[in-house]
């Protein structure tokens, strides 16, 4: 993985010292809250319901074991012993004190971590494929390009005060694990007919109160022109984005207002004015970054592991784990292992300090020192030898981290909701826990198959409810928590926005309603159809009937 150099490290230390000074000035009264708030937000520090919340960037979802151990230490020393992985591959701590924040940033900087640009109207952490460098599906390693964007966008003077926040996703596989089409910019890395690499550029996707699947504005952008093109897109947005209205300030509103074609034309016009020699990345720098990711020390192994096969044949629980949480690796004899943070009664995406340390140890001993975070709030060991899988499984089981439910009904995305968040209208976590309990039977969950449930506690849609097979949005109905269900969304390569099923339901009806939806699906699905496929074939009606007919 990419290693910070001296310049990166000095920069982080300076930034941390600067924030220490800002906190001191706030506490002494030299800075007002209105002056201080944008400064703390630029360092990922929010004031939530019970305490400050610190959002720490995990660049493109990639961590090493010492970084994860440091996060565990922070959880233990400054929080209540746990952290929360977010839908943007970051981690949040819920119980931070303002007076401790500078010390925490120092501790993060020691392991090349920070909270810069995890909030504010700037370019945020780039989302990427958690299987990068491990999956045979990819045409290139997307982390290379994420790192290019990280270096380019960090404290970019022109793009630090955009009309609104700005999120980029990069995938290099046909199967999209980044929700690229609902980002401000989605970059799909493709191989052209002549073998050259280029990006399909999607601009103006997004969720929130106005969800859009982004349109493609450029079919094939040669990779060496990436930065100048991004500069052109951001410049058009910076110039014309709606700064007058926070609800219309995202780039998706501008792209929708102009139309994708006109927006693309303006970008091309701007792009033509940019000198590539100034704006684009020199080949030598790209080669340096690329080399940092090429060094994964894989061994040459046979494709078949006797240890693995014997364990799978002899242990049904292990076989189930392999079916649901283990994916093919590009190298023979290796596998990608997903670690579910969605055990029964667990808060989706939460991990205790002890669990983080277990995962760090496993990555060190059996995972080539590599770890990933997924936007579905799970963790990944991207490079585990098949020979080591039974041992890794046993260690995960002992730490309650071996729940075999990836992409199944109980692998639910949920934002912190009203249990923590100052913006939320309703709770999300207890709803997720109710549904997981309803589908605790793993045989049944496997029979149901892939079913992505995502819950947001408000219309800002941090829980991605618009792009869920079954989306759940918490609303405040005359002061009570109600939940609006929607069906048929997808954040993957077949992206779509879900449609509202019917009137919102009270909290205690939601898990039952999901059960009724699943029942309806099982009754009408054709062979091989996922829930989403059946919905797309039959539409809302049979599902509406299942949930609302009995209720009347």
């Amino acid at each position, binding site marked *: 993985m990419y290693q910070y150099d001296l310049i990166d490290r000095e920069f982080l230390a300076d930034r941390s010292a600067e924030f220490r000074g800002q906190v001191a000035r706030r*506490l002494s009264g030299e800075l007002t809250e209105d002056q201080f708030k944008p400064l703390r937000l630029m360092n990922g520090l929010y004031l939530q319901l019970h*305490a400050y919340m610190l959002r720490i960037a995990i660049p493109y979802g990639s961590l090493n074991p010492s970084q994860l151990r440091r996060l565990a230490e922070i959880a233990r020393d400054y929080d209540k012993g746990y952290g929360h992985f977010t839908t943007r591959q970051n981690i949040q701590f819920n119980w931070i*004190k303002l007076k401790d924040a500078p010390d925490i940033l120092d501790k993060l900087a020691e392991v090349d971590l920070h909270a810069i640009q995890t909030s504010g109207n700037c370019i945020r952490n780039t989302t990427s494929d958690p299987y990068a460098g491990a999956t045979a599906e990819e045409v290139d390693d997307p982390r290379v390009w994420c790192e290019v964007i990280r270096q380019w966008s960090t404290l970019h003077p022109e793009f630090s005060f955009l009309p609104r926040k700005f999120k980029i996703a990069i995938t290099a596989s046909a199967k999209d694990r980044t929700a690229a089409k609902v980002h401000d910019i989605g970059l799909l890395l493709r191989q052209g007919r002549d073998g050259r690499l280029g990006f399909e550029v999607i601009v103006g996707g997004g969720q929130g109160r106005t969800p859009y699947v982004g349109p493609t504005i450029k079919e094939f952008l040669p990779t060496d022109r990436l930065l100048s093109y991004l500069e052109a897109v951001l410049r058009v947005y910076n110039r014309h984005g709606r700064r007058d209205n926070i609800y219309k300030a995202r780039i998706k509103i501008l792209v929708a207002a102009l139309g994708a074609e006109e927006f693309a034309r303006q970008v091309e016009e701007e792009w033509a004015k940019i000198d590539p020699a100034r704006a684009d990345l020199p080949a030598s720098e790209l080669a340096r970054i690329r080399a940092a990711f090429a060094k994964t020390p894989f061994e040459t192994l046979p494709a078949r592991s006797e240890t693995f096969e014997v364990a799978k044949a002899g242990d049904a629980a292990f076989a189930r784990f392999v079916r649901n949480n283990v994916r093919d690796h590009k190298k023979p004899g290796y596998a990608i292992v997903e670690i579910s943070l969605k055990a029964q009664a667990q808060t989706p995406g939460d991990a205790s300090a002890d669990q983080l340390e277990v995962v760090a140890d496993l990555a060190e001993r059996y995972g080539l020192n590599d770890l990933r975070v997924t936007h579905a709030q799970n963790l990944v060991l991207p490079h585990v030898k098949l020979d080591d899988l039974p041992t890794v499984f046993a260690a995960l089981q002992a730490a309650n981290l071996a729940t075999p439910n990836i992409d199944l009904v109980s692998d639910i995305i949920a934002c912190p909701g009203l*249990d923590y968040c100052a*913006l939320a209208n309703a709770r999300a*976590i207890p709803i997720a826990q109710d549904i997981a309990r309803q589908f605790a039977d793993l045989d049944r969950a496997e029979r149901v198959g892939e079913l992505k449930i995502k819950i947001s506690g408000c219309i800002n849609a941090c829980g991605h409810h618009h792009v869920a097979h079954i989306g759940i949005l918490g609303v405040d109905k*005359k*002061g009570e928590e109600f939940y609006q269900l929607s069906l048929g969304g997808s954040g993957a390569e077949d992206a779509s926005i879900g449609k509202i099923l019917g009137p919102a339901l009270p909290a205690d009806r939601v898990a039952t309603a999901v059960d009724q939806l699943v029942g309806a699906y099982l009754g009408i699905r054709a062979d091989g159809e996922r829930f989403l496929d059946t919905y797309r074939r039959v539409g809302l009606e049979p599902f509406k009937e299942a949930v609302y007919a009995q209720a009347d």
Partner: protein
Amino acid sequence: MKAVTANRLLDGEVVFWKSGQWVDRFGDAQLFDDHHAADVEAAVATGKGQPTIVVDVYPIDLIQSEGRWAPLSYRERIRALGPTNEPTHGKQAEGGDVVAALRQASGAARSTGRVDLIRRK
């Protein structure tokens, strides 16, 4: 009935107004009768004049629950208790009658002041 709440600047802790002081427990909060609106306004104004001690000062509505007073909105009850997914975290960890009454309360309305807060963000 009303109380006045805020978050403490230094650590973000939820606090309540009590006769010129900020206290941690809802059970210790000063309760204002509805015909003492001027006292509520005065407490809020004093809090807003203490920017190095508290932030986001606003009044909340209360209802009766099990013979005690509890915040009317569930948002304010969660603030006064802690997150419902972690019953040992936050103020609720102490337990006791007030915590039990807050957990039982079932009033439903947004707290006064909250809408104003969201607009400012």
